[in-house]
């Protein structure tokens, strides 16, 4: 299959950037990233600079392959990352726009690569459980209700890819932050520090310059792990609760 690619090229954060047009011959069994590998081999053969894009596991668990394909983070398929998107989702002769994730808190490093370290700083502010390490606990020492474990696990499937921020017209990081708050806060080990965690993580999120949630819901639709908006509501009410009713301050 022949494809016309419009790829965002930007040398550095200071560069303005623009779309460049390329033709690529791909086959439908290739993943989207393999198609970009083919493009880069063509560019290298012509002694041009290859397109910079992030990738790592190529099996949908690392969250590295950040790019917006025809206006949708990770492309048109529901519940998958770019590496899990195959060229059979496109037609021969299609024009595909490939852009970096756009948000002020995710500055472009080069081409399709953006700096998502803002997420790391949100995690550092409270996305952990303070426990003494040592021998692994017995699996059944702390009883956890099945439904609750399921809910916490659903939130824990967040891979921190940033598609929620990319999809949000406000560049908000509420889905990511709320998934982390939920997955720790619902479990007995994480409950202890829950109030402080909510306050700290929301504060860190605001300081990073992410936008404010207006409940558009595109984040959840585009999320490769289909994290639910219920998590945002939970974070909202827990934030209200922690602000009004707990002694913790951040």
């Amino acid at each position, binding site marked *: 299959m022949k494809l016309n690619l419009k790829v965002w090229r930007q040398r550095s954060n200071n560069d303005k950037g623009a779309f460049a047009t390329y033709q690529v011959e791909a086959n439908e069994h290739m993943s989207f990233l393999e198609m970009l590998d083919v493009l880069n081999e063509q560019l290298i053969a012509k002694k041009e600079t290859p397109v910079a894009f992030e990738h790592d596991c190529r099996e949908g668990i690392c969250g590295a392959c950040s790019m917006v394909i025809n*206006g949708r983070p990770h492309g048109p398929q529901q519940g998958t990352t770019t590496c899990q998107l195959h060229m059979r989702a496109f037609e021969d002769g299609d024009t595909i*726009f490939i*852009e970096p994730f756009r948000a002020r808190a995710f500055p472009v490093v080069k081409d399709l690569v953006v700096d998502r370290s803002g997420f790391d700083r949100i995690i550092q502010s409270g996305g952990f459980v303070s426990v003494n390490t040592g021998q692994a606990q017995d699996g059944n020492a702390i009883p956890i209700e099945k439904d609750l474990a399921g809910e916490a696990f659903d939130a824990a499937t967040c891979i921190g890819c940033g598609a929620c921020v990319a999809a949000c017209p406000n*560049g908000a990081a509420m889905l990511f932050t709320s998934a982390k708050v939920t997955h720790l806060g619902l479990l007995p080990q994480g409950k202890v520090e829950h109030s402080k965690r909510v306050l700290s993580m929301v504060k860190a999120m605001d300081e990073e310059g992410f936008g404010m949630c207006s409940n558009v819901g595109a984040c959840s639709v585009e999320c490769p792990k289909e994290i639910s908006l219920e998590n945002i*509501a939970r974070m*909202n009410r827990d934030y209200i609760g922690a602000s009004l009713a707990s002694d913790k301050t951040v």
Partner: protein
Amino acid sequence: MSWFGSFLKSSIGQKIIMSLTGLFLIQFLAVHLIGNLQLLANDGGQQFNLYAKFMTTNPVIKTVSYLLYASILLHAVQGLWLWSRNKAAKGGKYAVMAKESSTYASRNMGWLGIIILVFIILHLWQFWFQMKMGWLEMKTYDGVEVKNLYAPVAYAFKQWWYVLIYVLAMGVIGLHLHHGFQSAFQTLGLNHKKYTPLIKFLGTAYAILVPLGFALIPIIFFLFR
């Protein structure tokens, strides 16, 4: 900063201001509609004028009306402020717009809000200001002297262009409500499979029925009075 200050300044606190003022304005629309429906009593405006006098003189309602003015102002100013901050936080647009992952109304609350604000200013100038400034002629029903607010309303509803503006504005309010109603609950943290389907259903019904009720009155006046 005090805990309350940092709560209000946080992104969630800022949205709660929008949510609470929005919910107050939502219930006001129903009260306003009850008043407007009295225009349909075919009595030359007696019932409507008496109701207007009650609404502008009753001390409880007067107090609530100040809360209403404050809510409209706060919702508008805060909305514009958040809109510009969110635009800055986005930092740029995509070349291709993905329309399938969100609703039209949710993406355009800022624009819809601006149109509604312009309509409210026009609306206040036309009716509210006239009532307050006392430029209206007086009418007497059973010895009670009241301002004849019915006259400018009936006149305006006979102008085709005004009816058109009014009906279009109601459409915009419907869209704004369709997103705003359920969004207000989500912001307050009220999203659960037990009741969210009901909130969404009520929101959709409210967003259709209330603006439709408002829009029907000028249409009835224009066509049949």
